[in-house]
Every structure is written in structure tokens, then in C-alpha cells.
């Protein structure tokens, strides 16, 4: 277990070094106050830490709550639709019609309806995550091999037993993949939502620094947002590895 972890850590360090180097080179070439080098940005990040960390907490809470709500709602509905041809016949056209609509355009509507605090941001991200997970869970449930279902049914399993012992575990790998990919989208939408009509959160912090022409602080905020994304992604990856540990085994 420690060797792959070590390799992963080394990979991160290497990638980080390359990234910082490219950033420094770009900053040097562009030579504009709007693009400070990594040294100043990182220094500012640590200087500003007392102000940044509450914003990180606020943003993390929003994105985590939204992803949890979206997932918890989408998984049962998606699995059920995937397993029930009759319900699917009705729901599928609705889903595939609404799936491509960019849900982010509803932000103004949500701001009007749900006020200016956490609710509209959480709702927006939850809706986006909901659709991604819904479609994934639907397809995963549909792809469950009939042989597995049949042999568990022959043991006397009822509908809920089939979900518990077959459909849910069989769909977990796909759902986690969708969640990990969804992290990027969720953070992007979070930034947008927080940059409009907001008084806290990392999105607000970045846009506020931008307005004050405090570019190093702006980049400190960008670093914080990147960190939030990486930590979230890695946490999901670790959770996935644990939940689907049966896939790791080889003989």
C-alpha cells in the first residue's frame, strides 16, 4: 500500500514543480502585474491565510453539500429507471431532452427564488451533479449482467435484495467515475456562482481581489480553489478505491 502512495506523492511533487516552472516562465514572458510569478502568489497565499481559510471552508461546505444532495437524489432514481423498462420509457425522453441544457443559465432564476445565501449555489451545483449521476446510474444499472440478477433471484431474492446485492454494487465504479469527473464541473460552477452577488467564498475572494487590482491576492485565491479541487478529487478517489476494493484484486 505504501509504494503506490509514495509513487503518487512523487508524481504530484514532480507535476507541481513542472507547473510552477511553467508559471514562472509565463509570468516572466508576459511581464504584466496581472500575472504575478508563483513566488509572490504563494507568499501572499500564506500571508493571507487567516482571511483565506474561512473562505475555503465556506466554498468546501457548498460544493460538498451540493454534490451530496445531487448524488443522493440521482442514484436511486437513475438505478430504478435503468432497471424498469416501463418507467424508463416515460422518463428517458425527458432526461435526454433536459440533459444537454446548460443548467448554469438558471443561476439568475435561482438567485431570485432562493435568495443570496448558500441555497442558490448549492441548488445549482446539485442540479448539475444530479443530471450527470442520473445518466450514469441509469446506464450502469441497465448494463448489469442478467445472469447475476437471475442467479440471485433463484436464491429467493426480492426486488430490493436485487438492488442491495447486485445493482448498487455493480454500478458503484461508474458512479464514482462520474463523481470524480463531476468535481471539476462542480468547482467551476461554484466559482461562477460565488462571483455573482456574493460576500464570501473563494469565488467572491478572487473576484474581490481582482476588483481591488490586488493580483497577488487574486492568485492566492486561485491557488486555494485549485487546492479545494485537488483535495476533493483525491478524497473521492480514495473513497472509490475503498468502496470498490474488490476490483483491485487479481490472481
Amino acid at each position, binding site marked *: 500500500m505504501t509504494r503506490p502512495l509514495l509513487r503518487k506523492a512523487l508524481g504530484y511533487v514532480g507535476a507541481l514543480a513542472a507547473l510552477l516552472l511553467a508559471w514562472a516562465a509565463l509570468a516572466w514572458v508576459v511581464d504584466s502585474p496581472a500575472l504575478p510569478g508563483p513566488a509572490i502568489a504563494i507568499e501572499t497565499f500564506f500571508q493571507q491565510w487567516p482571511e483565506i481559510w474561512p473562505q475555503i471552508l465556506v466554498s468546501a461546505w457548498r460544493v460538498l453539500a451540493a454534490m451530496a444532495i445531487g448524488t443522493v437524489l440521482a442514484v436511486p432514481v437513475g438505478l430504478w429507471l435503468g432497471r424498469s423498462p416501463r418507467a424508463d420509457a416515460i422518463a428517458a425522453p425527458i432526461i435526454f431532452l433536459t440533459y444537454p441544457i446548460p443548467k448554469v443559465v438558471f443561476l439568475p432564476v435561482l438567485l431570485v427564488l432562493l435568495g443570496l445565501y448558500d441555497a442558490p449555489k448549492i441548488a445549482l451545483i446539485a442540479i448539475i451533479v444530479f443530471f450527470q449521476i442520473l445518466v450514469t446510474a441509469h446506464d450502469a444499472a441497465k448494463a448489469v449482467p442478467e*445472469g447475476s440478477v*437471475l*442467479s*440471485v433471484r*433463484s*436464491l*429467493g431474492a426480492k426486488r430490493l435484495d436485487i438492488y442491495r*446485492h447486485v445493482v448498487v454494487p455493480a454500478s458503484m465504479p461508474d458512479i464514482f467515475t462520474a463523481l470524480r469527473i463531476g468535481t471539476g464541473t462542480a468547482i467551476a460552477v461554484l466559482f461562477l456562482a460565488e462571483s455573482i452577488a456574493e460576500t464570501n467564498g473563494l469565488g467572491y475572494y478572487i473576484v474581490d481581489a481582482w476588483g481591488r487590482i490586488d493580483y497577488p491576492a487574486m492568485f492566492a485565491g486561485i491557488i486555494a480553489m485549485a487546492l479545494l479541487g485537488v483535495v476533493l478529487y483525491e478524497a473521492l478517489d480514495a473513497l472509490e478505491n475503498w468502496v470498490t476494493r474488490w476490483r483491485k484484486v487479481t490472481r
Partner: protein
Amino acid sequence: MAALEFDRVGVTYEGSDRSVRALDALELHVAAGEPVSVIGPSGCGKSTLLLLAAGLLTPTEGTVSVAGAPVTGPRRETALILQDFGLLPWKTVEANAALGLTVRGVARRDTRERATAALERVGLAEFARAYPGELSGGMRQRLALARAVALDADLLLMDEPLSALDALTREDLQDVLLDLWQRRGHAQVLVTHSIEEAVFLGRRVVVMSPRPGHVAAIVDNPRMGSDGFRASESYFDAVRELRRMLADEGAVSAAHGDGGGQA
């Protein structure tokens, strides 16, 4: 009393544009504790027969009874083993063996005890915490058997359970199946493509005809299970007779073997 009884059973699958007659006027009686092999060409409804017996399919006409009662759904003491063994890769070996007990709501402690005993019975006790992905094909098959043993099944239904195994493992598992049957005395229906396997494991071998499937002939094989049967003259006689019958059904060419077994 017959453990399993098919009384003029017919099955028609309704497709979207055409219907398929899978079984027609099937008559079959398997006595309690009797091991029966079913063999026949592809598409003769062998798998349909097992699904009916397991209560996963309702006949279009006729009745299927197990232990004297008409089959209306899966029954507690009936175990079905499919070609891919029906193992769940996300459950440990022990949880897979215990699955039948778990879905039937047997108390947790009881479940554990019986699963452990069943794993010991098939020689997998030391792999209880492993996942099926870590097992070889033969071990997976043993695990599928352990599930049936844990259920204390009195009727074991198997759909080409050994067809994915290599010849040596296959022979080994045939011995395991025979040993299990001799110890437990359950009724058994084994659907197979292998003539040798049908003879080795069936006290009677049922030959089925294709579309719509029905019983074409039954070969009695009373010496099945006796010591040294695999090398005996009566074994080879039965194999020869069965091959001739299948050739009559057009299932095999008379000059060749079935390709899937071991002579």
C-alpha cells in the same frame, strides 16, 4: 414422490415480431435423490427447463412441481448454478457462499456457521476473506457449489456448470460433484454439452430434441457412481450408446466426439 416433475409442459417465448416455441409437451420425472443429466443440441430448451424448475419462469401450459407442490417461485431448498457460476465479484468468498441464506433472512450467526461449513466442504475455507476475482475457475465453481451446500439444497439444478473449465479441472470438479451427491443424496439435474460428463454424473441421461424441445430418449445408467466407473466397460458402453442417440438427433456426427469432454 418425485422431487421434480414436468407434466406436459410447454413454453412459448413471445417476441416482438414472432414467438418461439421452446418446449413442447415435456414429460420428465426426477425422483428424490436421483441424479439426472440432460443433454441435447443447442436450442433444445435445456436452459428453459432449468429456469422452470427453479421457479424463475412460468410454463405456458402444463405444470412443474417440486416435492409434490406446483412451482410458483424460487424455493428455499432449490439451488441453481448457472454457467458463469452467478458469483458476485464485490462480495467476499464467504459472503458469496452465504448469499442464499442472507436473502432468506437466516440469522447472521447461523448464516456464518453454515457458510463456513460449506466452504470447508468444498475445500475453500482458507479463502473465506478473498474475493472471487482472486480465485481460479475451478475454485469459483467450488464456491458456487458451496452456496448450494450452505442452502442445504435437496434439488440442485446446474446449467453447463463446468463448460468454462479446462479438461483437468473439469474432471476434478466432476469428482467433487459426484462426491457431494454421494454424501448429501440430493436430486440433481445437470444440463451439459459433454457426453462423458452426462454419463459420469447421471443415473439417467435425458436426450432432448431441438425446437420445440421435448424428451427424445432416456438412457439408463445404473452403474453411475460405482467405484472406478470412469474406467469401466459400462461407462464406455453408455457413452457409446448416448453418442449414437445424439447422432440420430443430428446433434453430433457419429464418427466424432463432442469436443467438449474428455475421453
